[in-house]
């Protein structure tokens, strides 16, 4: 088991290295440079541009730029092109803003998707199954921002739920309790909207996984020996159907960065996705590259976690691994 984990970590470190090189090359080889963001500004003289380029090492060969990036990243010296603020603290602050949104959305997804999916599988072909299937496809097919705008139109007038930002402006001096309530209130709609697609997709997975398991022989055996239907479904079928989902915890992590751009933009949520979006607009290479790097680390960590979890929960996988060693 240990050898398996160590081998996996080493493989993933190698992958990470290749990913970082690839990301670095894509960004630097593509046309469009930080010095070109504001070409019409008459105060930007050629010598200024040359100075900026030298300061950002933009005239050095690519491998040197890569080395500089890596060195600065790991010594924590990496500075944003835009405002010369250190990149890592900047990302950390935005990460703390994204985190509550991510956690709420994930909790919503997992609490709604499982009952919906299991119920649909148990009643395959019934009215509930067909209508929930249809609703799930509607949610998958609607552009996220279209749905969010419809939601905003509806809830703001009807319930007065806030839909902009993380807190009400001017509440800084309020009591902590009210501040907390305000923060929670602001979370409602953004997390609901970012969860909508996830609920639809995951409940479909749960349904098909349950269907797969229900048709297995051991479920028929359980029924055959006269167990109650609830025991059959929840003790025999569900436990085995859950296996792949344990591993899906691992795949959730990267959603922190990639999945949030649109929703953070709609709800003016000052999180990682918006940071990335603005970094792209400003050609802020260190921020873009570091975000990309962190996303890759999260993906790799996630797949590692899911591999390990799989081995932990599924004895068949564990024996196979031990057989290999």
């Amino acid at each position, binding site marked *: 088991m240990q050898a398996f984990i160590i081998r996996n970590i080493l493989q993933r470190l190698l*992958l*990470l290295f*290749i*990913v970082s090189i*690839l*990301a670095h090359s*894509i*960004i630097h080889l*593509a*046309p*469009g440079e930080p010095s070109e963001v504001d070409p019409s500004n008459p105060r930007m003289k050629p010598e200024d541009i040359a100075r900026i380029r030298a300061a950002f090492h933009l005239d050095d060969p690519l491998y040197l730029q890569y080395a500089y990036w890596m060195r600065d990243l790991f010594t924590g010296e990496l500075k944003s092109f835009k405002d010369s603020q250190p990149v890592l603290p900047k990302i950390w602050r935005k990460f703390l803003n994204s985190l509550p949104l991510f956690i709420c959305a994930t909790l919503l997804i997992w609490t709604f998707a499982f009952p919906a999916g299991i119920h649909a599988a148990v009643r395959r072909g019934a009215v509930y199954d067909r209508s929930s*299937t*249809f609703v799930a*496809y*509607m949610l*998958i*097919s*609607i*552009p*996220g*921002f*279209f749905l969010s*705008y419809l939601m905003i*139109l509806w809830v703001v007038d009807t319930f007065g739920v806030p839909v902009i930002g993380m807190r009400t402006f001017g509440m800084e001096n309020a009591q902590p309790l009210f501040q907390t309530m305000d923060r929670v209130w602001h979370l409602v709609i953004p997390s609901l909207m970012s969860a909508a697609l996830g609920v639809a997709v995951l409940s479909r997975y749960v349904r098909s996984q349950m*269907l*797969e398991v229900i*048709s297995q022989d051991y479920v028929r055996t359980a029924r055959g020996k006269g167990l109650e239907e609830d025991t059959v479904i929840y003790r025999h079928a569900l436990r085995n159907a859950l296996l792949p989902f344990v591993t899906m915890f691992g795949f959730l992590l*990267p959603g922190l*960065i*990639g*999945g949030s*751009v*649109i929703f953070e*933009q709609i709800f003016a949520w000052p999180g990682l*996705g918006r940071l*990335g*979006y603005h970094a*792209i*607009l400003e*050609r802020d290479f260190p921020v*873009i590259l570091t*975000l*990309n790097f962190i*996303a*890759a680390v999260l*993906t*790799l960590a996630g797949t590692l976690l899911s591999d390990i979890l799989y081995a932990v929960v599924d004895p068949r996988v564990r024996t196979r691994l031990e057989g290999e060693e």
Partner: protein
Amino acid sequence: MTHSNEVNQVAEELPLGETPWQETLRIFKKDRLAVVGSIVLVFLVLTAVFGKALTEWVVVFDPEVIRLPDKFKPPLSFPSEDIVPPEDLPSVGIYLLGTDELGRDVFARMLQGSFVSLAVGFIAVGISVFIGILLGGLSGFYGNVKLGIITVDTLIMRFTDVMLCFPTFFLILTVVALLGQSILNIMVVIGLTSWMGTARFVRAEFLALRKQDFVVAATSLGLPERRIIFRHMVPNAIAPVLVSATIGVATAILTESALSFLGFGVQPPDATWGNILADGKGFIFDAPWLFFIPGIAILVVVLAFNLVGEGLREAMNPKLRRR
């Protein structure tokens, strides 16, 4: 039920002499949602072709005429014939879906956009399917060939893993922003970032197929590899590719509209449903039709693609068939 009855029933359900494609079609037809979806898609393709023809070749609906006196006309309203110059009047005499902030005919723009949106979807998916089959096939068939110290399989699959590490939407956004938002770039970038799933299951199918008797037989008959791959293996591995391609078109249309929302979609004068929707969001109170018409159109079309894709998946999955 006695045993013989059961046999008879099965025999009735499975007509003899049915080819696999006929069987797929028969099961597909049972799924009402998928059938409705495929009717919508046929209608959509016709709309796109006629849209292209009527907005560019024989200009019946001109999407580019600007009529400032007639801006923000609601759907089914008549042009102000006394102010708008006669050559700019819509040739059907009515704004079927209203006009936008520049007085352009929304119906004409939607027609033009249907072709562009579909083209973005199909070409992006075409690229991703091509790369996916190529790399997946190479990896599955010539996986054991050594290139120096590593095998072809290791090389290709590790590259796939590398691509899977990128946050896809963020990568698309970055590349499109840096390269410029031409329609070609958007199609190519979406295609280049979405082939990994296809490659993985084509490889899995190929690995499984190589051990099947008919491939072993074909190999021992001495057929050329080209023939084994393209005549015997690809047709058997194509079913899941077809399913994921159908759903891929839907995803590509959604991705384009998300890019448009962020201002990185297909740029004017090319109209797509995504950028009509993204432009319309600014007029959601003054001219709601600019927002709802493209939004609902995208919803219906993407829904149709997804339902057809799922219908195909059910129909082509032998495990689910005889339940």
